[in-house]
């Protein structure tokens, strides 16, 4: 005990403010950035930043959302195929039913919230394992997206076509220079969701579910309600991610999306969210997603074939989980 106190005192003010893992992750980001910049001339360009942002939006949005179920010691696997399903239905509303883009967005969000709610209610009310439940909804939304859109690939408005205003939510063209203004919304959402997680009742109960659900239940808190809230938040952000994906890439292929959730969950875990629940931060998730997106955009530049990129991303994840477990063992010992 005495040693622990001393050790804590020795910690620098930096690690006290941000947490050890977050400081390490920042270090990793800096190293990755330097490495890619030195290894590839064409990586050192302004447009790389824009491309990086393009990738980051949908992964980050999914990751912010999924951080909440993760903190409750749950998980939401349905977000990856979910964003494809939601955006493909949105595209159907826009391009086949000829509705305004705004209506497509509302439909996308409504569907995402519906599945978030379904996940939550099944997990909380029936007390089923989140891994299994969301694995099932992952398969359901994958099939549903294809069926609802008639198996066709979906197209959201492209640059220059009517309704293309939706693209300028994330990037604007200012005199030939593309400005990734989506980052402003991301920062705003990070601040808001950090506040929700740390300072509101919702956030505090969600953390409490992850650390000791039984104790929380015994103290008279409606656990079901707050657990559903966590999945609803995940669904909401999956909806936003679907819109970000659609507005950036325009073209959505049905039946894909499996694996995208792992980028998001991986990001959250690298950022220090514990897989066993009870701890995590939105800022950490942001840093973790930055690592994932850096790998995604950077690795092709150093001449690696696509399959090597997956191997390296997997190795980085193992590192992050090991770090989390060592931390936990230390805390327990």
């Amino acid at each position, binding site marked *: 005990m005495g040693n622990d106190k001393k050790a804590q005192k020795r910690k620098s003010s930096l690690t006290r403010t941000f947490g050890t893992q977050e400081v390490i992750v920042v270090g990793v980001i800096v190293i990755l950035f330097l490495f890619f910049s030195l290894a590839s*001339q*064409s*990586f050192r*360009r302004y*447009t*790389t930043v*824009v*491309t990086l942002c*393009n*990738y980051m939006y949908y992964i980050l949005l999914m990751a912010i959302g999924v951080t909440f179920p993760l903190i409750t010691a749950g998980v939401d696997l349905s977000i990856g195929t979910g964003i494809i399903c939601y955006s493909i239905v949105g595209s159907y509303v826009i391009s*086949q039913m000829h509705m305004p883009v705004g209506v497509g967005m509302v439909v996308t969000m409504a569907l995402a919230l519906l599945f978030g709610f379904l996940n939550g*209610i*099944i997990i909380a*009310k*029936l*007390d089923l394992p989140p891994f299994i439940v969301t694995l099932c909804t992952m398969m*359901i939304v*994958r*099939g*549903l997206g*294809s*069926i*609802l*859109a*008639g*198996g*066709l*690939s979906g*197209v959201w408005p*492209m*640059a*220059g*076509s009517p309704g293309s205003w939706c693209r300028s939510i994330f*990037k604007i063209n200012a005199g*030939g220079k*593309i400005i990734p203004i989506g980052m402003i919304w991301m920062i705003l959402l990070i601040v808001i969701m950090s506040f929700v997680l740390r300072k509101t009742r919702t956030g505090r109960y969600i953390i409490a579910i992850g650390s000791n659900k039984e104790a929380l239940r015994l103290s008279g808190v409606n656990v079901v309600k707050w657990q559903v809230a966590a999945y609803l938040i995940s669904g909401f952000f999956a909806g936003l991610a679907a819109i970000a*994906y659609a507005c*950036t*890439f*325009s*073209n*959505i*292929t*049905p*039946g*894909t999306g499996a*694996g995208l959730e792992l980028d998001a969950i991986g990001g959250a875990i690298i950022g220090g969210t514990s897989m066993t629940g009870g701890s995590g931060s939105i800022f950490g998730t942001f840093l973790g997603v930055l690592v994932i997106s850096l790998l*995604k*955009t950077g690795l*092709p*530049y150093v001449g690696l*074939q*696509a*399959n090597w*990129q*997956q191997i390296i991303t997997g190795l980085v994840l193992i590192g992050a989980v090991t770090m989390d477990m060592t931390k936990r063992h230390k805390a327990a010992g």
Partner: protein
Amino acid sequence: MKRTIALVLATVMALSVAACSNGGGTTASSASADSAASATDSGAKSGNGKTYHFEVVSKGFQSTYWQAVYKGAQSEIKKLNDKAGYEKYSMNFVGPDSESDVAAQVQQFTSALNAKPSAIGLAALDVNALLASIKKAQEAKIPIIGFDSGVPNAPKGAVLANASTDNYAAGKVAADGMYKKIKGRLGKDKKVRIGVVSQDATSESITNRGLGFIDGMIEKLTADGLKVFVTGNQKYVGDSKGSTGTQANANVILEVRVPSQTTTELCATEAGVILNESDTIAIFGTNQTGAEGVVTADETLHVCGTGDDQIIAVGFDSGSVLKGAVSGGSMYGAVTQAPVSIGSTVVDLMAAAAEGQSVKDKDTGCAFYTSENIGSPEIAQNLYD
């Protein structure tokens, strides 16, 4: 309470699945955008004459390309029925969710066989996976007609005929169209890069097309006395005619990139890397998804165009994204196949085979289009959204 909720949820789910499915059971994706229920053009058996039922197993409906194939097949069925004066032919058109979903296609092909059709149309994703089922069809004496990429390397005699684009030749058409445009920028004292973005290295139609392009380009360049170095994905490097120079002394570097999954966003990353190289003068996307990846990447980079200082992008197939890019000038041109004609030809071949006539392969053709001829009738009929 819990049990009631479980029961209600299970019922709702089962009902909604039943409501969504079109009763066929085997149709993973129904073909029509208008109504999910019209993939089966069921034949009324009221006519006096003989009736034939066809099963068609496509590669899926991901791109609007397949939708055009379906339309061609559907209208040919109607035409033949009108001619016969009764519902002589009926067709069930199915396909898996994605072009990498080999297992789903095997299942659909097996179900199609169980329907005991008069003939079966097949665009195989992976011939090896389908071998057992193809043998069963042979034993049951159900004629198989290949379409689109067909059924390459099928057992002898199993596939009676193919209605398809010669993809290797189509790849050469793309190389030809691109070469004419970039000729002036090549030279023995120069070192430039031409990129290829291919959505995968497994599908026969796509690899053949990529190889056709690479080989076509190598032929043109070596004829000019230029040295070529092919690099990137092992499959393409290994199966193409190969390098005539080394990385150091090559006048043209042909770089092939393949993403880990067949999505636009991953194709866009690979395309972005090529477009970002300072020596890149041209890029080829081997199919709709690959070419859309090029367009998406260029939206950020703004380096493609038709000018002499811009990167010449060439695509394959159409769809609203590519059509927009070609008319707008950010993509120089693209090769279109004739999906409508593929659809109608496969029906014709199936009808002939079902009646025991001898059938043979039909090349359904392709053409290079740019912003100049995109509106001409012979091109426009094969472009789809």
